[in-house]
């Protein structure tokens, strides 16, 4: 397997300031949405990113793409450091990195036709001097994602949810990117439509050699589509490894609880399951606990977990990383 990293993320932080005061605004704190995250995405793989709402998955995806300016850290994509790249250079690099959003309803401009939505990035980057060629290319793209090119002049509201997601995918593909952040691309879709979109994404990956960062909270789907998975909790990666390895042998107590909470569509399997029920809620990222972020809900916490510094992400087994004092004392 090729282990060449397409993307290297090191010490990435994104803090959102909390301000107070109406006239004289001053910063009174920060939401530590992404707090010192390290990971690689290998060429041609799908890296899953999972965790509960608010743990920083989307912020990580957007900060990697430089849609948010990082508070600290480095992002190396195809060998170039993005965080210090001049605006014009960054704009060019953007062609290679695209994003697909969760909500196919909100992310498409309702006043633009499908054809103009898909060709917008082509126009911005002046890819086709010839209008005719551009239209042919857009039609090809539509066909490729399973949309009838006949509908090129229709508006988003005339399509179903699954079809709208296909429009978003066609637009993301238009500039022939190498890397796509898919931020919950199926969460808004009916169960019966999700498999269509997932199969399309994996076909496209094969065909164009794409690399995906797949953000999701459907852990069963992540197991199906991702080669490796990163589990986030309160702005940090707590476990990272091959998907099968993490699912069959989770090391972090949070991953164990998270996986045990996912219902399985099989009444016989369900009746036999042992659940780890966590108590309480996720703490606010504006006031994370002292020590390990998980210590307020952890079933196996001990003294060390309540003292800074928090446990670092270390390679406990080859390719299997975990941040927990219990696992690597």
């Amino acid at each position: 397997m090729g282990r060449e990293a397409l993307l290297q993320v090191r010490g990435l932080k994104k803090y959102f300031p909390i301000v107070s005061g109406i006239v004289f605004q001053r910063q009174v704190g920060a939401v530590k949405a992404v707090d010192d995250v390290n990971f690689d995405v290998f060429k041609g793989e799908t890296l899953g990113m999972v965790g509960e709402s608010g743990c920083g998955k989307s912020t990580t995806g957007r900060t990697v793409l430089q849609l948010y300016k990082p508070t600290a850290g480095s992002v190396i994509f195809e060998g170039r450091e993005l965080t210090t790249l001049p605006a014009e250079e960054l704009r060019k690099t953007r062609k290679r990195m695209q994003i697909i959003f969760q909500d196919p309803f909100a992310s498409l401009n309702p006043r633009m036709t499908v054809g103009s939505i898909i060709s917008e990035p082509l126009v911005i980057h002046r890819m086709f001097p010839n209008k005719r060629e551009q239209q042919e290319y857009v039609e090809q793209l539509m066909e490729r994602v399973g949309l009838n090119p006949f509908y090129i002049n229709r508006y988003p509201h005339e399509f179903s949810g699954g079809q709208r997601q296909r429009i978003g995918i066609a637009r993301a593909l238009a500039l022939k990117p190498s890397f796509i952040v898919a931020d919950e691309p199926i969460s808004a879709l009916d169960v019966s439509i999700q498999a269509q979109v997932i199969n399309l994404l994996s076909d496209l990956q094969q065909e164009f050699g794409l690399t995906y960062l797949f953000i999701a909270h459907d852990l069963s789907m992540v197991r199906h589509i991702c080669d490796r998975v990163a589990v986030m909790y309160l702005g940090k990666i707590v476990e990272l490894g091959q998907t099968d390895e993490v699912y069959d042998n989770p090391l972090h107590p949070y991953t164990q609880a998270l996986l045990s909470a996912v219902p399985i569509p099989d009444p016989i399997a369900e009746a036999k399951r042992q659940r780890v029920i966590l108590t309480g809620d996720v703490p606010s990222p504006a006031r994370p606990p002292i020590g390990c972020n998980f210590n307020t809900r952890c079933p196996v916490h001990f003294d060390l977990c309540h003292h800074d510094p928090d446990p670092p992400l270390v390679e406990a087994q080859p390719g299997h990383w975990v941040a927990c004092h219990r696992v690597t004392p």
Partner: protein
Amino acid sequence: MAVLMEVKNLVTRFYTQEGVVHAVNDVSYPLHEGETLGIVGESGSGKSVHVLSIMGLIPTPPGKIEQGEVLFRGRDLLKLKSEEMRLVRGAEIAMIFQDPMTSLNPVLNVGTQITEALKLHLGMSNTAANTRAAELLDMVGISDARKRLDNYPHQFSGGMRQRVMIAMALSCNPKLLIADEPTTALDVTIQAQIIELVKRLRDELRMAMIWITHDLGVVAGIADTIQVMYGGRIVERGPVKEVFGDPRHPYTLGLLKSLPRLDQNSKNSKLVQIEGAPPDMRYMPQGCSFAPRCPYCIERSLQERPPLEPAKEGSGQHLVACWVDVREGVTQSG
């Protein structure tokens, strides 16, 4: 077990500017005392409208219950006057929703909201109601319950609000709890907490439940009976083990096959996908609503609507509405 509620031939439509929406089309089923019925189906398949019809909560106009009966402990709920229905709601039948704010009032503290129901339905005094309200919050796992009674809904997290709503719903010991996607907006670890809680309370209080969800895993873990809806109709229904183990409707079969499983590695296979999109409820096909997407569709499926009948060689409790026996496995598209 005795029958607690029987829904008979329920038909609900909405008369909108864009046309008549056939939301619920001739739905009939019994619900037994203590039984948990899980209802699944895609968005727009009539799950919510059907329970709102039972509860007398359909906005009229544009909605209209065209026909049917809902016999609950001998009375037809659809014939009750609105004041009579209000007494049934909350006391004998309680409901919890996906968004707790639809049942919680943002400007009243939760103590007031819970005690009001206790005073209205059970005629409790102020002090008795306060004590009971604290007990209820404690029962749903909210610590420091007495103090939290003074808190307003916004002072609770999403999962806690859901629990407050459950406490309110259970305050008058209902015979039936209807839950419409109560955990869909929650994280899985919080969903697991809520489901454990509801299961425990259900067993303690011996309630019947109707649990609506689009998550087949949730149904597998909580329900005795599963009912699959498509196009405003029941297309399959039966004991959970039987339906999951031996699905007979092409839609149920397709759904189960399209789902990857947490406990299995399916990386090298493709998901089986259901083609097409959900039906437009304004146009009622003559035949089976699933026919346009169905790999097993035959000529008759397009002409004539299949009735809900006992599955061949099934337990008799397992019902399916399909002209084809999917076990014979003849799919038209190959």
